[in-house]
């Protein structure tokens, strides 16, 4: 493959959706054609993004497909993009979920269709940009850029309390990212660059003046922005509102990708730039993660609302990711990355399934259902499969990641692993109990008797997710052999740190 294509690949992958959105602006308002066009663009984008894993040099640390051009000379901002094994898969996760979002919104969005798909495609560009940016400024730019389309998707196309949810989502993340901006500005003021790699090496070599005094604050500045996004317990309150009110596609991308921006940020920036501070602050981050795992699961257990249940389960699952990241072990970080991907696929699918039911009955209340297995057998099968994947059944995608995270956590401190492991049990409780209430037993409400089973389009949206859940569970190495070197790279300073401490 020519290097020219490799160089422009990330730019292409990032901006194809935006180009599609711009074309949609001038598109005539024929809803069917608009949907079709959005589907074609997102599929094309997915195919293009597959170039990344196919031609990825596995076993090689460092960033690949790099582009680095001067964008603005003062301040010194570069258009610097690149992916390693972690971010590459997150990009592919994004491009994988977007066509499914288009399919799942086919009928449920029937007003202002054009604007909906424009926002969806703009959101996709911003999300991919977050994962590929290697210039802190560029990163911040894409980070903020995800906010507006997402808030509008929730606010315009959402359900009852959509405005409240949209504003809450926007303000929460906006305020938190201000702290990150302040930290980025501080780093720029001291180093004169926004380049992630340069700043990293400047910090590593001790060339940043006053760094020792400010480091903890900088760590916290980044951490708060990411913690709100993940969300880490006590910053999670925006999430259930946003999920419950969001349209299905919004929820899929919110849970599937947006939350991963936070964990990705922790992995890349908190660990990458501030290894010592990460180590020093790990204890309370771990405790928060554990609280998140248990608290999210317990609240999910008592939710009468199906979508809220899935939302709280996300808090619990993302707790695993944070736990893995701050265990600073190879297994923990590998697992954390894998959970990010697995959670994206299976929770994305769960939200699609919940959305399918909502389209039929216009409610998410679990009590409104019961015995659905007989009128909707295919639906029930898909649901069961995804629930099992989510619960962490071996040979499906949830298992690998959680297993790795827990083994990493055990290695760090046994009590973390033990407490974390309870989360796996809890997730089986709330998901299977929900499944039982919705699908088994007799049909309790007459309306449910005549519910139509999945249509061809809905199956088309669910099959890829189910297939991915299976393949990821059976052949995790396909993913892990790219993730592994990237994680080693992140962990390199920690090994030095440990040896330094032993040397003392």
């Amino acid at each position, binding site marked *: 493959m020519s290097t020219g294509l490799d160089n422009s690949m990330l730019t292409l992958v990032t901006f194809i959706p935006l180009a599609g959105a711009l074309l949609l602006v001038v598109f005539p308002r024929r809803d069917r054609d608009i949907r079709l066009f959005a589907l074609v663009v997102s599929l094309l984008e997915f195919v293009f993004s597959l170039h990344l894993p196919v031609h990825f040099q596995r076993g090689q640390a460092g960033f690949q497909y790099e582009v680095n051009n001067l964008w*603005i*000379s*003062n*301040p010194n901002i570069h258009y610097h993009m690149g992916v390693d094994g972690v971010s590459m898969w997150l990009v592919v996760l994004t491009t994988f979920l977007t066509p499914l979002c288009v399919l799942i919104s086919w009928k449920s969005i029937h007003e*202002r269709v054009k*604007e909906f798909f424009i926002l969806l495609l703009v959101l996709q560009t911003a999300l991919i940009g977050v994962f590929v940016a290697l210039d802190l400024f560029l990163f*911040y*730019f894409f980070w*903020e*850029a995800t*906010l*507006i389309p997402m808030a*509008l998707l929730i*606010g*315009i196309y959402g359900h009852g309390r*959509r*405005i409240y949810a*949209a*504003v809450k989502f*926007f*303000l929460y993340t*906006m*305020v938190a990212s*201000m*702290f990150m*901006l*302040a930290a980025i*500005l*501080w780093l*720029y*003021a001291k180093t004169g660059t926004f380049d992630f790699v340069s700043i990293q090496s400047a910090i590593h070599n001790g060339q940043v003046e006053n760094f020792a005094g400010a480091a903890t604050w900088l760590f916290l500045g980044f951490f708060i922005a990411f913690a709100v996004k993940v969300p880490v317990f006590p910053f999670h309150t925006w999430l259930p509102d946003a999920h419950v009110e969001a349209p299905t596609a919004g929820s899929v991308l919110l849970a599937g990708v947006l939350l991963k921006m936070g964990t990705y940020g922790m992995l890349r920036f908190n660990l990458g730039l501030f290894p010592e501070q990460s180590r020093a602050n790990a204890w309370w981050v771990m405790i928060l993660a554990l609280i998140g795992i248990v608290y999210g699961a317990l609240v999910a257990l008592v939710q009468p609302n199906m979508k809220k249940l899935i939302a709280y389960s996300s808090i619990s699952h993302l707790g695993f990711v944070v736990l893995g990241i701050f265990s600073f072990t190879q297994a923990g970080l590998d697992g954390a990355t894998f959970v990010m991907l697995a959670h994206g696929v299976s929770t994305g699918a769960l939200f699609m399934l919940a959305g399918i039911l909502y389209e039929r009955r216009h409610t998410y209340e679990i009590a409104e259902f019961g015995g659905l297995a007989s009128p909707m057998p295919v639906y029930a099968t898909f649901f069961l499969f995804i629930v099992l994947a989510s619960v962490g059944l071996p040979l499906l995608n949830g298992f690998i990641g959680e297993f790795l995270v827990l083994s990493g956590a055990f290695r760090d401190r046994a009590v973390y692993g033990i407490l974390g492991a309870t989360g796996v049990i809890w997730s089986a409780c709330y998901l299977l109990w929900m499944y039982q209430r919705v699908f088994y037993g007799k049909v309790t409400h007459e309306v449910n008797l005549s519910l139509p089973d999945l249509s061809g389009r809905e199956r088309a949206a669910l099959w890829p997710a189910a297939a991915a859940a299976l393949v990821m569970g059976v052949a995790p190495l396909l993913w892990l052999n790219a993730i592994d070197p990237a994680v080693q790279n992140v962990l390199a300073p920690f090994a030095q740190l440990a040896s330094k401490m032993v040397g003392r």
Partner: protein
Amino acid sequence: MNNANDLTQLIPQAADYVRILPEIVLSIFGMIVMVLDPLMDERRSQRTLGTIALIGSLAALAATLFQGQYPGLGFWNMVRVDSFSVFFHFLVAAVTAVVILTSYEYMAVQGIRAGEYYALVLFGAVGMSLMSSAVELVLIFIALEISSISTYVLAGFRREAAISSESSVKYFLLGSFATAFFLYGVALMFGATGSTSITVIGNVLRSGHIPVLAYVGIALMFVGLGFKVAAAPFHVWTPDVYEGAPSPVVGFMSTAPKAAVFAVLLRIMFEADAPGRVWLIWVVAALSMTLGNIGALVQDNVKRLLAYSSIAHAGYLLVAFAALPNNGIPAAMFYTASYAAMNVGAFAVISHIGGKGERYVTLEDYEGLGRRSPLLAATLTIFLLSLIGIPITGGFFAKFYVFSAALQSNLVGLVIIGVLNSAVASYYYLRVIVVMYMREAREEVPLPPIPVGLGTALAVSLAATIYLGVLPGRVLDYAARTAAEWAR
């Protein structure tokens, strides 16, 4: 040596006139408008006079570019053309042109007689332009008065509305009070340093001994100028005046005269190296940001909301004044430019939606605008996002440069206050966007199609806002050169 030689020195040279060429052009066009006004019948005059004024402002723009090739002092060292003055001349002329374009439709809808209006806009622009090139305090005072008196009258142009007259009188009374402060400060400064020339004052102050009188003089001048830029605690007039004044005029007076006053402040604070500026400005900047944003949170009238927002923005801008010159000056200049672009654009939208008698200026009237006029709503959204400071808009880089300048001067406390304030501010701008997109449309609010003039005005300010947000480098480099010129 001999009398003849002295005499020739008293006669202005051709070069002197080049130094005030934009002002001359603006004055001539202003007078043409005034002379033509009584000769034309009222209906026809609207467009014609507006077009003449528009040509005048564009001619001033051209004159500025021409003048920029001949930098130097003129009129016995009272006026100086340098890249700094060219920057602000350009800004004032561009804002004037956009405001005139906005006023076409506004004047016709409100049924206001156009003649004096356009003339006053041009005369105001004369004062504002002169403020940025004057390097002598008395001339600055005169320029300030030219600009202020024009805006006092413009604020009262909605004659049938009592609120407009109230706005005008309030602005006039408080404004005169503030100018008196400024003049008093000038007098004290003269007493302290023996000169009214900014360069000489700067030399005296830098020479080591700083008389106490100079501190008092600076403080008094700052009070006067602080009033003009609506910085807290001298901001109380702003919401009332903005609410009453015609919307295009608010767009004008919240940007062009402010930019000019900031230019004066930059000259006084940095070129004259004002003593004790950092703490003075620290307090005022922190107060303005905080009071402006808190005030804006509870507003339901869009004009009042933007009035409070402009107080807050004056605060952000002042942060740059507390920073070191080589970072602070370019940051402040960039901020004025991008604030002018987004705010004049926002008020163009407001004046269009306001309708006859400006009846539709509350948030409720904006409900469902996203559905009824996607283009107008999207435009206003971009201006508001820029005011919040979202990337790829000028507002983002403006804040960015200001805060990083402050960080480089170790003003961490002020930056934290500023950052928290911008977070708070996003709430009230967001309210407008929420109302436009997420509420049901209100059909009873009439929404005429966008006329060509307004469309052009919006396109220009939108393009400027985006340009400053995507490729800020050129403007910032230009501004940085200014700082370097002063440092020499």
